[in-house]
């Protein structure tokens, strides 16, 4: 039971309704539940999976969902959490914040979800966060990597599982300035994620001694980059650092590789998501970041990939990538935190997550990771990669160039921007 006013009101409405209907049959909603509990068993814990199925991040959202489902199935296979089975529900959030708000409201108020998981788009993540914060519902932002997620838009109830633009810049910029050249050009998607990422790249590059010769702002939904590419050629920079996202990047990639411009200039990209790569692998270019790769030479990775493939033989993408990985890790760590807390009480679950350390082996990364108590962001290994010239199979698209320890990729400014509200001011619940 929620221990705020909501439950009492619900009871009152219920009795009013019962009186009105004079014992009439109760109707149930049409939602597709994944009921896994037998009659009489303990009440299951319900997770609301807020994944895009359409819009700009539809493909990523569905890949994210597979990771979450895999973690849930693993827990259910061993008897659930706290002796309770785990149920889940998902609805298309349409890569649209307004839709995400409604879905979050429904998951919390109507579906009585204990926790929410999932986001790729930062607007969607913000929308869900605002609703969740109102109810105190713990929310895992799996894949939205705007630096503001762990900065000005951080929240006590939200945990951010992806590496962000600043992390990737930190991992990439200094080496590039020293190794490649000092004349830098920025190619930036003209929206919040692009701007914040470009700003952090600019600061880091200038600190390393580079000169930013121009910053070309590319409107969102640009498909034809010819005029920018001509401009890039005219300006003749040593390095082009891009902060272009989603579909726009796919289009850019294709045009650059078609013209072989990668051979003339060094390109540094921010994070590239596996579902975006998978659609057009031939157009990978430059150096880019990721948090995980399915052919990392680490113990457990192969076995994890096999389990994933066995669970989702019909997945449009045949192997898990960073997006699905984040979905899996966020869900698994949330459920583990519930186990550690011994309750679904949100305050206790948050406490169990804050500052939690996750060994490298357990996360299948090179370095230990931890959940930053100040920003609620997972600080983890950041990989730089480029296109694999000698792939071992058709999924082997990356050549991993380096791994950066969390400490060296840390966004130092984030804690000053992030103001978490005190736990006492968060509505509490236990479901």
């Amino acid at each position, binding site marked *: 039971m929620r221990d705020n006013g909501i439950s009492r009101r619900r009871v009152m409405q219920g009795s009013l309704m019962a009186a009105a209907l004079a014992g009439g049959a109760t109707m149930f909603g049409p939602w597709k539940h994944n009921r896994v509990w037998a009659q009489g068993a303990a009440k299951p814990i319900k997770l609301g999976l807020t994944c895009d199925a359409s819009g700009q991040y*539809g*493909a990523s959202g569905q890949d994210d969902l597979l990771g979450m489902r895999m973690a849930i199935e693993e827990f259910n296979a061993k008897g659930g959490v706290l002796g309770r089975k785990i149920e889940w529900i998902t609805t298309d959030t349409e890569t649209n914040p307004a839709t995400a708000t409604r879905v979050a409201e429904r998951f919390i108020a109507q579906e009585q979800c204990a926790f929410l998981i999932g986001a790729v788009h930062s607007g969607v993540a913000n929308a869900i966060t605002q609703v969740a914060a109102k109810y105190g519902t713990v929310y895992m932002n799996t894949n939205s990597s705007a630096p503001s997620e762990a900065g000005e838009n951080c929240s006590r109830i939200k945990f951010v599982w992806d590496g962000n633009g600043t992390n990737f810049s930190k991992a990439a910029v200094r080496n590039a300035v020293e190794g490649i050249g000092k004349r830098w050009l920025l190619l930036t998607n003209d929206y919040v994620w692009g701007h914040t990422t470009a700003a952090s790249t600019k600061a880091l590059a200038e600190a390393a001694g580079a000169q930013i010769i121009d910053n070309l702002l590319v409107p969102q939904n640009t*498909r*034809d980059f010819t005029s920018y590419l001509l401009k890039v050629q*005219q300006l003749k920079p040593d390095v082009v650092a891009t902060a272009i996202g989603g579909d726009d990047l796919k289009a850019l990639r294709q045009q650059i590789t*078609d013209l072989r411009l990668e051979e003339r200039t060094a390109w540094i990209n921010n994070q590239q998501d596996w579902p975006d790569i998978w659609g057009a692998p031939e157009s990978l270019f430059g150096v880019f970041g990721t948090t995980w790769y399915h052919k990392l030479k680490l113990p457990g990775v192969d076995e994890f990939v096999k389990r994933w493939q066995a669970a989702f033989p019909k997945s449009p993408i045949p192997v898990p990538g960073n997006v699905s990985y984040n979905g899996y890790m966020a869900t698994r760590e949330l459920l583990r935190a519930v186990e550690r807390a011994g309750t679904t009480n949100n305050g206790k679950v948050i406490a169990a997550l804050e500052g939690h350390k996750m060994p490298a082996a357990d996360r299948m990364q090179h370095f230990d990771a931890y959940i930053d108590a100040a920003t609620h962001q997972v600080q983890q290994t950041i990989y730089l990669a480029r296109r694999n010239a000698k792939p071992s199979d058709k999924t082997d698209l990356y050549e991993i160039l380096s791994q950066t320890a969390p400490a060296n990729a840390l966004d130092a400014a984030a804690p000053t921007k992030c103001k978490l509200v005190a736990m006492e001011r968060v509505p509490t619940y236990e479901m």
Partner: protein
Amino acid sequence: MLFNLLPHLVNGLTLGLLFALIALGFMLILGLMEQINLAHGSLFALGAYFAFVIATPRLPWPELNQAWATVPLGWRYTAALLLAPVLVAPVGLVIERLMRRTYGRDPLYGLLLTFGIALVLEDAIRTVWGTRDYSLPVPRDISGGFFLLDLIWSRYRFWAAAFAIAAMAVVWVVVERTRFGAMVKAGAHDSEMVQAMGVDIRKLRAGVFALGTMLAALAGVIMAPVWGIRPHMGVDAVVPAFVIIVLGGVGSFWGAVLAGLMVGMVVGLSGAYASEWSLLSMYLLLILVVTFRARGLFGKKSLLEA
């Protein structure tokens, strides 16, 4: 300065030709039938998807697909270019069939009907092919880059622009120099007269719609390597198309061509010198022109204003 500007002018020109190509089928149906086809973008997208199925190849019959895959890409691509529009044409004919109920009514109904059809087709594409992006492979001869003005240019882009010119020339000849075109133009203004000439007006309308559909699909195939293939590409195409039509003036062939070039120039130049404004530029151009020339550059008075 001029030397710096020149590449962007060339770019704007090629872009403009492609925009004009996208708008061409839209223009035909709007100008000759006085029907707005908002599903134009979906037909454009279908053309790209069908071409993708043929060229990659991803035919739904495994044996045939295997045999076809051994054919060189050049042939597969050519087949896609020729076949995809033909395959999309029936979809256009179905839309025309549905639209018949709106003939003679307020043109608003045609607009609403095709808006609904566009939503349905976009979701159908999503259901069949998923939300992810695909790319259309292009034969080596027309892909890659070449040097011009000391810069690398996309070969495909010039090829596509040349193709756009050819397609426009064919349409011009069909509309202006053939009996079919004469009948269509007459039918647009006086359907009774055409019927008196012994022509089945319904077949004529279906013919125009089929032609418009094939042009939309053809534009989709041509644009696929530039824009990529994804469910949303239809909306990306239909919006510039209607901007160009309104700018050029409803019913004017040369208006559409000129407007396409203007939009291309404006988008190309703003992309280079005021990049943040490049997407907005075409709307501002539209509002500017239409404020001073109510019916666009070469527009005539039309039923659509009623």
